[in-house]
């Protein structure tokens, strides 16, 4: 049976030929990216480096957000909450006792936190773990009974985080927030995290676990009847997404060096929702492309909030808040008229990329 020629052919076709070739190509691409980033770090100005950092953070966030929303198909509104958790917990870890003393002027910091001070890397991981623990605590009751409510639970949690951050004076310093966080984050950190996130999530999605997650998205009834424990898999996707979002929050805090409860509003989640929708719900490639496009695009869109001079004749006054309206319109319009987004559910593959040059245009691999 195993010698059956058709058998072997089908098997070869499936493993998409050359794994080693793909690995080498990927390594080359990552090398080129690192080179480009190195040059950017050397020669680009502060403004552009900041944007590059934000692009990487948005890629991290969008790819993890897509894992739960797009790949697993569970509508969630969690990123701002988990980014806040990661940002606060990591910052409280890296701040020196002296800095804490200077920050907590209304009430002193609780003793168990006041004397803690750890390096950046463990602080990032603590940021990620904190978010992951809360994800487990929320995911457990929600996925056990009504997955529908995930969105409202996560939305509510975002509000709760703000309420708690405002009120727990001795832990979060309340509305004053935390100032003077060391600026540890640079291009190496942000892009390192983005690449790590991509590596982990892409490999997970391409494995048997990824097939199970997509099966749950496509047809939960069938998936469960085939022995897939949908509860555990949803929880896995949600917790993993939270872990990376928490780490991205830690990066963000050590990039902007000042955080307060007002910083992590729903607007952040909304941006990410636009990114994963425009990129294509369920396409990690799409999320990366859209994260890059969105970060640049939203910088350009700042123009609508500032006065614009038309041909030197007259000036259109900028409308503050207009950007948000435009974002809302983009999201609704995308859902109504362009639900596929840039990539649909297709992913980048070297097979497809090389096909572009050899003329054998076979189309990107679906799902």
């Amino acid at each position: 049976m195993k010698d059956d020629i058709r058998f072997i052919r089908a098997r070869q076709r499936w493993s998409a030929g050359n794994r080693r070739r793909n690995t080498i190509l990927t390594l080359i691409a990552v090398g080129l990216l690192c080179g480009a980033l190195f040059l950017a770090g050397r020669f680009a100005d502060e403004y552009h480096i900041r944007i590059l950092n934000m692009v990487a953070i948005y890629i991290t966030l969008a790819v993890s957000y897509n894992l739960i929303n797009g790949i697993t198909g569970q509508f969630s509104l969690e990123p701002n909450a988990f980014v806040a958790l990661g940002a606060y917990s990591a910052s409280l870890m890296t701040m020196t006792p002296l800095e804490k003393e200077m920050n907590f002027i209304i009430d002193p910091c609780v003793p168990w936190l006041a004397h803690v001070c750890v390096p950046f890397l463990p602080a990032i991981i603590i940021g990620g773990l904190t978010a992951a623990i809360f994800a487990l605590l929320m995911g457990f009751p929600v996925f056990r009974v009504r997955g529908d409510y995930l969105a409202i639970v996560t939305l509510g949690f975002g509000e709760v985080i703000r309420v708690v951050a405002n009120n727990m004076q001795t832990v979060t310093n309340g509305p004053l927030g935390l100032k003077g966080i060391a600026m540890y984050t640079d291009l190496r950190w942000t892009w390192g995290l983005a690449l790590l996130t991509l590596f982990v999530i892409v490999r997970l999605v391409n494995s048997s676990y990824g097939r199970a997650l997509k099966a749950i998205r496509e047809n939960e009834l069938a998936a469960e009847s085939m022995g897939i424990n949908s509860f555990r898999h949803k929880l896995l996707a949600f917790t993993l997404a939270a872990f990376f979002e928490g780490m991205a929050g830690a990066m963000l805090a050590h990039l902007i060096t000042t955080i307060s409860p007002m910083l992590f509003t729903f607007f952040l989640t909304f941006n990410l929702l636009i990114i994963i929708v425009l990129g294509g719900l369920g396409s990690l490639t799409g999320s990366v492309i859209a994260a890059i496009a969105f970060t640049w695009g939203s910088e350009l869109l700042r123009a609508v909030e500032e006065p614009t001079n038309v041909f030197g004749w007259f000036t259109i006054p900028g409308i503050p808040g207009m950007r948000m309206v435009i974002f809302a319109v983009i999201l609704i319009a995308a859902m109504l008229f362009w639900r596929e987004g840039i990539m649909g559910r297709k992913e980048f593959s070297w097979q497809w990329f090389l096909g572009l040059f050899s003329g054998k245009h076979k189309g990107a691999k679906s799902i």
Partner: protein
Amino acid sequence: MAPLLETRNLTMRFGGLTAVDNFDLRLEQGELVGLIGPNGAGKTTVFNMLTGRLRPSSGSITLQTDGPVELVGLKPNRINRLGIARTFQNIQLLPEMSVLENVMMAWHGRLKSPFWAPILGLPSYRREEEAMIDGSLELLDRVDLLELADAEAGSLAYGQQRRLEIVRALATRPVLLLLDEPAAGMNPNETNDLMRIITEIRKDFSLTILVIEHDMKFVMGLCERLIVLDHGVTIAKGLPEEIRKNEQVITAYLGERRRAAD
């Protein structure tokens, strides 16, 4: 020896309606039993209770594995892992995934590697994945779908989709297979193929099979024993020849035909 599967007083009520009333079933190891009855008789409801999709209002379901296991209250995935697999009346494939992936997905419930194994690229996971591919292709070959392994499941012809669903159920390594109208919408040739396939897999995998079907040629030709449901009540049990002559069964089906004629 205790039967492979036994239900006692299995009852399902929806609001005031009793969809299945005191259903008693004994399936011996290796049997091929047909569950028939007019539309709306409660046949699929029985399947849904057996597979944990619906929780019965009352009654018990006992499966013999290493010892007796009570199935009422267990989740569908757990019941599948205990050895009951099913197909659906309205096909429930993952249409955008490939045929091969549809079968491989059914392997996942048995996967031993934790989620970080594929991320780290551990050899243990690779071996499992290889076994999954080999096993799935082998299964696909049995139902003549090997050539279509890379096709999108949704692009398959209707009869092929039915076969794929059966193979996917087989990939979960069941001891008991529940087939919900496997021949529905098939032409006579396809039905003959299907009957051959079912006979083969039953022998090769030493399966016990419970099948819901309307096609009388299929039922009479394949099943060793029949159970007839009408309005949730078991109105007859016995050998196909006996059922064919059973007055009550004829009336139930005639009523159906008369309703259909109206």
